[in-house]
Structure formats: structure tokens, C-alpha cells
């Protein structure tokens, strides 16, 4: 296995191009390391991104929060500009794993790990995050995180790397809810992130992301439609929660929980998230 520490994104892309499917990008490596140590045979090149300074940057510019792929969960949870403009993201990041893991795990690594219940990804999807992607063939492109996740599922972007995530800075209300079997240090059974803009008693641009109830993090588009543009009420919150559970979620039975229980958790947690985010709206405070 060859090892590289490129200083610039372009350099990393050249290496990606050269080694193709034998290349692995290292950005934290909480998942990669275990796999690599168990069986390093298929890996020709390990490309450590740590020297690429710009990938560590967090900045707010023109209504967009740009977070570099190497930013750790701990920094997301504690950086003031993120806590101010994307408290949902900071909260989700702070609830992830345990303190030691949060020092290592990066936003880029988390997105690429494909974990269907990743706290960071669930929150980012609800935030309407977009990925800025650098590729060998073309200049960088920016696309919604969900679309990138879909593309990833079909395996198109072998020679690209996620450089940054963009989170739009807008006035909004948000909440993050998750359920685990024990009370800490565990992958969520179900995670729900909710973010919306308030216009009086109505909600606009509602985004609800669900973790743990499908092959990847999902948008609860049915539930979003129930809430978007209409005045919020206890009944509509309940209806949205039911829609998220029955139409949007795609849980399956596994060793940790039944699909039925996960569906139930979606109902409970979506309703809770709406209440927590919009608790001051008449009639729905818990």
C-alpha cells in the first residue's frame, strides 16, 4: 500500500485518478481503519487529506455556511458560527457517538460512510445542505446532499471528493430527536431532524430528515407536504408525523428493532420534533 499526503485538492484528485478503485481517502478514518487493518489487500493507495488546509475551514459567507470535509464532529458541535447559524447541526454532531469519536470523525468521512442513521447526515439533509465536489474531469460542482447520496448508491463518483458542505443560513426553527436502546454512545434506532421557516402560524420550506428507517438517510417528503404552507396545528403535526411513519419511512426488521417499533418511533419523534421547534405556536405546545 502506498501512502500519500497531498497538500492541495488538485493533488489529491490526480492521485484518485491514478489509483482509481484502489485508492482510499482518509479523513478521520473511524470506519476505514478497521476495514483496512482487517484486510488491506485491495487497497493500492491511502490518500490522507489532512494536509489540505482548506478542507479544515469553517466560514460563513453570503448567507452560506461552508464547512470543510475534514471538520470533525467535535468542531461542528462547538464552533460558534455553526452553533449560531445551524444549531440543529451542532446539536446532532454533539450527540454523535462519544467524545473520543467526535474528535476523530469528520463530516466528509461521515457522509461517505453511507451510514443510514448518521446524526450528521440526518441533520445536514434537514438543513438543506449541498455538497461541493471536486472532480478530476470537471471543475467543482455543487449539488444537494440527498442527490449525492442517491448517486453514491449507484456508484458514479469514483474520482471525486467532497470538499465542503454548504448549509444555507436562513431564519428557521429546528429540532433534533433520536432514540437509542441505552441512553448514550450508540447508533440511533431512529433519528429525526426537522427544520422550517416560520411565517406567522404557517411553515414554509419544511425539511424533515429521517435516519435509521431506510437504506440511507431519507427525506420525509410526505410529511413536509402536510406542513408546508399551511397553518400549523396540533392536528397537522400529528398528521405529518403519521405520514412520515406510514408513507416516508421504509424501516425493516433487524437485530436491534422491529420495523413496527421503528415506524412508531418515527411518529413519536417527528411529532416531538415539531413541538419542540414550534412549541410556542398555539395549541401544540406539549
Amino acid at each position: 500500500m502506498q501512502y500519500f499526503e497531498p497538500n492541495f485538492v488538485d493533488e489529491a484528485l490526480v492521485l484518485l485518478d491514478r489509483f482509481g478503485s484502489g485508492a482510499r481517502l482518509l479523513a478521520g478514518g473511524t470506519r476505514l481503519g478497521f476495514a483496512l487493518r482487517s484486510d488491506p489487500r485491495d487497497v493500492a493507495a491511502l490518500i490522507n487529506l489532512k494536509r489540505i488546509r482548506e478542507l479544515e475551514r469553517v466560514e460563513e459567507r453570503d448567507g452560506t455556511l461552508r464547512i470543510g470535509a475534514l471538520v470533525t464532529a467535535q468542531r461542528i458541535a462547538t464552533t460558534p458560527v455553526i452553533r449560531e447559524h445551524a444549531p440543529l447541526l451542532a446539536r446532532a454532531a454533539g450527540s454523535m457517538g462519544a467524545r473520543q469519536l467526535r474528535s476523530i470523525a469528520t463530516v466528509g468521512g461521515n457522509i461517505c460512510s453511507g451510514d443510514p442513521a448518521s446524526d450528521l447526515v440526518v441533520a445536514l439533509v434537514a438543513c438543506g445542505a449541498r455538497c461541493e465536489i471536486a472532480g478530476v474531469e470537471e471543475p467543482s460542482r455543487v449539488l444537494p446532499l440527498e442527490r449525492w447520496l442517491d448517486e453514491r448508491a449507484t456508484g458514479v463518483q469514483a474520482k471525486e471528493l467532497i470538499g465542503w458542505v454548504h448549509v444555507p443560513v436562513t431564519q428557521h426553527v429546528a429540532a433534533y430527536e433520536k432514540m437509542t436502546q441505552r441512553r448514550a454512545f450508540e447508533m440511533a434506532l431512529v433519528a429525526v431532524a426537522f427544520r422550517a421557516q416560520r411565517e406567522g402560524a404557517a411553515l414554509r420550506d419544511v425539511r424533515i430528515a429521517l435516519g435509521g428507517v431506510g437504506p440511507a438517510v431519507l427525506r420525509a417528503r410526505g410529511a413536509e407536504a402536510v406542513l408546508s404552507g399551511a397553518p400549523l396545528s396540533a392536528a397537522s403535526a400529528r398528521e405529518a408525523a403519521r405520514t412520515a411513519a406510514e408513507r416516508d419511512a421504509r424501516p425493516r426488521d433487524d437485530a436491534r428493532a422491529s420495523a413496527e417499533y421503528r415506524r412508531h418511533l418515527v411518529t413519536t419523534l417527528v411529532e416531538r420534533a415539531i413541538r419542540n421547534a414550534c412549541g410556542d405556536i398555539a395549541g401544540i405546545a406539549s
Partner: protein
Amino acid sequence: MPERSGSATIGSKLPRLDSPAKAQGQAVYVADLQPQDALAAALLRSPHPFARIVSIDIGDAKQMPGVRAIAYSGNTPAKSLDFGIKDQLLFPRDLVRYAGEPVAAIAAETEDQARAAATAVKVAYEPLAPVLSIEEALAPGAPLVHPDWQSYEKGANRVTDRNICGLNRIRRGDVTAALARADAVVESSFIFSAGAPGYLEPRAAIALREPDGGLTVWCGSQSPYGNRDDLADFFGLDPQRVRFINQFVGGGFGGKILMAAEWYAAALALQCDRPVRLVFSRHEDGLNLFPRHGGKATFRSGASKEGRLLGMEAAFFFDTGAYVGYGAGTALIATMLASAPYRIPAVDLSATLVYTNKQVAGSVRAPGGPQATFAKELHIDELALALGMDPLEFRLRNAWQDGDRSPTGQLLEGVRVKETLEEAARAIGWEARRAPGRGVGIACSWWFSACGRSEARVEVRDDGSVHVHSGNPEVGTGSAAGALPLIVADRLGIDPTAIVLTLGDTATQTYDGGVGGSASTFSAGQAVKAAAEDVRRQLLERAEEALEARRDDIELREGRAQVRGAADHGIPIGELAAQAGTPIAGRGVTEEISDPEFDASLVQSHDFASWLAPSFVTSAAEVEVDASTGRVVVHKIATAQDVGFAVNPAGVVGQIEGGAVQALGYGLCEELQFGPAGIINTGFHDYLLPTIIDAPKVEAIMVESPSGAGPFGMKGVGEPPVTTPAAAIGNAIRNAAGAVPYTVPMTPERVWRAVKDRRDSRI
């Protein structure tokens, strides 16, 4: 009151002697030993839960790079291990009986080479239909886990019948008539999941064949002497030439009583002349660990409307896995706990041990205790609720008192059930009004003190140092590193921190039965006490001469022998040793204590029908239940335990606090899951131990009711505190939410479902 010497060291709070080394990372565990020339070992394991071995061919593997030894059925003794039923070989020959069962061991220059060679061992299997549950095992015409069960040698009192490898029963009075008379009768059924011991240190061993034909094994065991004897016996070696050197042990909880890595490292070392090092990864450790038994139970009991228990039937079934191993105790203890600590005139209590194609269940901390206590105490609450009685009041009304008899007819004295119930109830605030969603529960039980053989040597050297050799290994409990030095310090009037301890090295020739059955301080303490008293006698004798004083006027204090009331008229004990020209040494051995009498006509096939120096324990819990998710938050556990006498109160509190959180894991989140390829959740990401966030406030209350048997009147303390908390949590969940799952662990999903089912049934 227990005897105390002038120094009053006993019963004081001593930080364990090994704690500075542990806090500085200097304590050496087996995996920390990395001999330069060590070979690395790897195991080949069965991928099938049940299969016929058609052939094993090690030819290719032997030719693999770096391979130095291969051990398997073809080159190791075809001798059965003896756990009461001779049903197990070191390496399987005809049949593999669980997925993960080691079939061959390989030693090579590097770990990667050993692993590569393991995959090159060719084993031809013919898979068979496995038996994966108690129901499947007992179904008519079920495949037999041991087709040759009838030919196995077995001990007296061992019942075998096809897939059954243990069955015991306690019967007293006429239960049918008693229940017919009862004003309320309830029946409840319970399911227990299997659990892992959960020690943080994966098992490991290093073995080296010595030039004289002997063998040295570096291990992290709960029972180095027992292991040495088993290993020597199996390989036909002279036990005196086999040396087990126990390192610090990163937790055992019953999971390190029997050997695992030691067997394979030794089998390989006997084929070569270099140390063989086998360190399990967490995953590998999980593949052949000794779990806490899963199983099930059905209880049926009745009481009068005044709240008197009249009769109880209880039937347990335990899934013991592929071999009997150390499984028998769980079933024997379960029937002893089933109706205790209550006066019940008529009982019929049975427990059946069942073979399945799974990992061999073991003797995890308080084997059978959490299971039996969970079932009986939730059942007792159900009966109290059916009578409309307060569960605490119902227990107090039926609790054993001095002079009562156990279900097997043992006369009970020094009974402290009521005190522990009252103390735990007080600590939890039983009567307090609580917010909706909050509830309290209580559960009580009893336990035994076990006394195994133990030997000790105590030496005072001319430099004044005091050396204590005990075969009892320190596995974390603090018996050996906390209680034993206190006992010696007390007898010799010295500072306990000045003691040099040598533990668990068989070369010191101080045999010890090992850590198990809460026996450590009880047994090893007795031996150490006797050895220290022997030294004390010699010191006083010599001081008599040296100080020209009457023996009765001499006291041992602060490392000196001195005339009472005349501190300047004395001599350091090291000086006495110097004058003697040899260390002043004493030996001590546990005295045989016979088990209390019981009525043999009340039991069938029961080897453990009376309990020495029994102790009593109650836990109370306060919980908060979120019925919409099933989330249970345990706010507090209070455990009141009759410890006889606390030799080392800091150690006892540590056992009670740690026991409470282990029991919380058993009750709420720990569950071994089995698939066709064995245990699914071998890791700590999927087998969930409680974290510091899950851990509640724990209040430890020591009730001291001295036993006649233990040193200073003590009783075994390690196991009782893990038996009652899960049951108390269960009863608290029902108190808070109106329903509780009768399955442990009571996961959020199970709690949610129990509450929902109750709600649905009301609509």
C-alpha cells in the same frame, strides 16, 4: 460482635493495594506481555452450529509460511473434559456443536501467517439440522446435540435424558391443595435472554514448554490452580511442573473461571520450544465466551386474602448450550431462589438444563441469580397487586424470620430479610408521592457464602517487610488486593500498604479454589488470617524473650512488638526476624466447614440443597418511563445487603455499586443474539453494556449480621448485589407505567409493547 484487634484495621477503608499500579497504567495484563521470540496463534472455528466432521486435513496448512505448530483432534488427547458429565473434548472429533467452536489452533511467526494457515486447514463438514432453542431441543423427535448421551460418564445426581443434561426439584407439601385453598392465584411466564460477562479485557494466554518437560502459562484467570490441575491432567503432565502465573485480570465475572486461550496456547506450546501467544480480539472472545444462561420460567402461586403465601409452583428451563460445562450451578441455584426468602408451606420447584447448538453457558456472576430473582419477584408483585396489597407490605408479611426453614428444610438463623427490605424501602422513599411516569419497585432474595480450599503464607523478613502469598487471584473484586492485606495488617499490627502481595502464581504453592461463588475473602481470608495468626504467635513468642516481658503484656503495633503502655520498650518485627536468622513465616489453610443440614426427602437430584452462611439482599429502584418510546431512565437503585461483617467496606460498596449497574444492563439493554452462524453481537457496539450516562445513583447499605462461619463473621458479598436490581427495576416499571415486559432485557421496544398491549386490551 466480630473480634477486632487493637489496631482496628479491619473494617476500615483501605484503597486497594494494586490501585497505584492500575491508575498509572503499570499493572501488567496478559496481552501486555510481548516476549520477543513469541509465536502468534490463531484459531480455526466451526462456521456451522451443528455438523459432522467428515475429515480434517492439515497438510496444506503445515506448509504455509511461518507455521510452527498445529493442534487439533488428530494430535491432542481424545480425553473428555470433566464437568460432571463427560461430554466435551478439547477439539471436536466427530461433531461440531456450535458455530464458533474451535476446531484447530495454529502457531506461526506472525499473526497474519497464523490466520492465513488457519484458513488452509481443510475441514470437510456435513451440516446437520441444529437445535437452536429450548423448544426445539425438547420437541419430540428433536435432533440430539449429543447422540451418544447415554454412554457418557457422569457424576451422581446428574440427570441426563436426550437433550436434557440436568434436572433438579424441590418439593414440600401439597401445592395443588394449597392453591385450591388460595383466595388469589396468579400464573406468570418469563423469558431470559443470554448475557455476556462483559469483562473489558479480552481473554489471552501465553504458554511455553520448559526444558524439563514442564509448562509455564501466563494467564488472566479466576482460577489459576484449578486451571493448572485441569491442564496437567488433560495433557498427562505432572502438575508440579506446570506453572500458571496469573497477571492482572481485566474483569472476570465468572467468564474467566474455565480456560479458553490457555488451552490452545498450551496445546501449541507443547509442540514447539518457543512461547505461544494467543490474544483474542473482542470479536473472537465473543465467539466462544461462557454466557449467562438464557431460558424461561413459569410461576404459579396463591395467597390468602390476608396476604399469606400458601403455595408456589415454579419451573425453569435453561439453555446451557453445546456442553454442560459449568452450567449445572445455574439450575441448582434457581430452585433454591425460586420461593425465597418467603414462608411458603407448599412448594414444587424444578429446573431443567437443556443442550442446544450454542456457546457453552457458564457461571456468570451469581449464576441463575438475576434470572430467578427477576421471575419470582415480578411474580410476587403480580400476586400482591392481585390481592390489592402494597408489594412491600406483602413481602414483609411473608418474609423469613429466625427459626424458619428453607424450602429444603435448612434451619435459618440470623435472618435479615426484613431489615434489608425496610432499609432499601427507606432509602428509595417508598411512601413518597411521585410525578406521573415515575415509579418504584422492590425485590429481595438470598444467597450463599461458598468456602473453597485456600492456602496462604505470610512472612516477616528481616527488613521488616511483610510478604503475603495467596493463591487467590485478584480479578478486580478487591478481595485479594483489599481485604486480605487488611486482615494481615490487623493481625500483625502493621500498615496494610506496607504489605507485598504475591497472588495467583502456582509456584508459591498456596492452592486456592479461585474467584467464584463470592468465596474469595471468605475462603482466602480464612487462610490468610490463620497464616497471620501463626506469624503473630511466633512474633509474640520471640518478643517475650527479646523484651523480657510477659506475653500478655506485649502488643503488636505500628510494625513493632512493644510492651503495652511503654512505647519505648519495644522492638521492630523485622528485628525479630533478623534475630531469628530466617523470615518468620506462617501457613494457613481453610478449615473444612460442613454444609448445614437439610431434609434430603424434599429434594431430587440436588447437589446444592443447603447454603452456608446465607445472606439476604434487597434492592429498590426508582424509574421514569416514557411510555411513548419505552425509554426507561433509572434514577436510583438502593441495595441493602446483609454482608455479615464488612472486612473492607470500600470493597463491599464497590461490589454493591458495580453490581447494581451490571444488573441494570441485564435488566434493560444486554442481550446476546444468536443467528445460524452463532452469536451475532460479539462487539461492544452491538452488545450494549450500560454507560456512565445509564448508571443511576446507587445507595449501598450494609446490614451486618455476623455469620458463624466466615472470617470475622463475614459472608460472601460479590454476587448478591447483582441478583435483585433488575427485578426491582421491573417492578418499578410496572409501578410507573402500569405494565412491564416479562422478558429480560426490558428493552425500550419491549416496554413500549407491554404498555401498548395493556392499553389495547383495555379498549
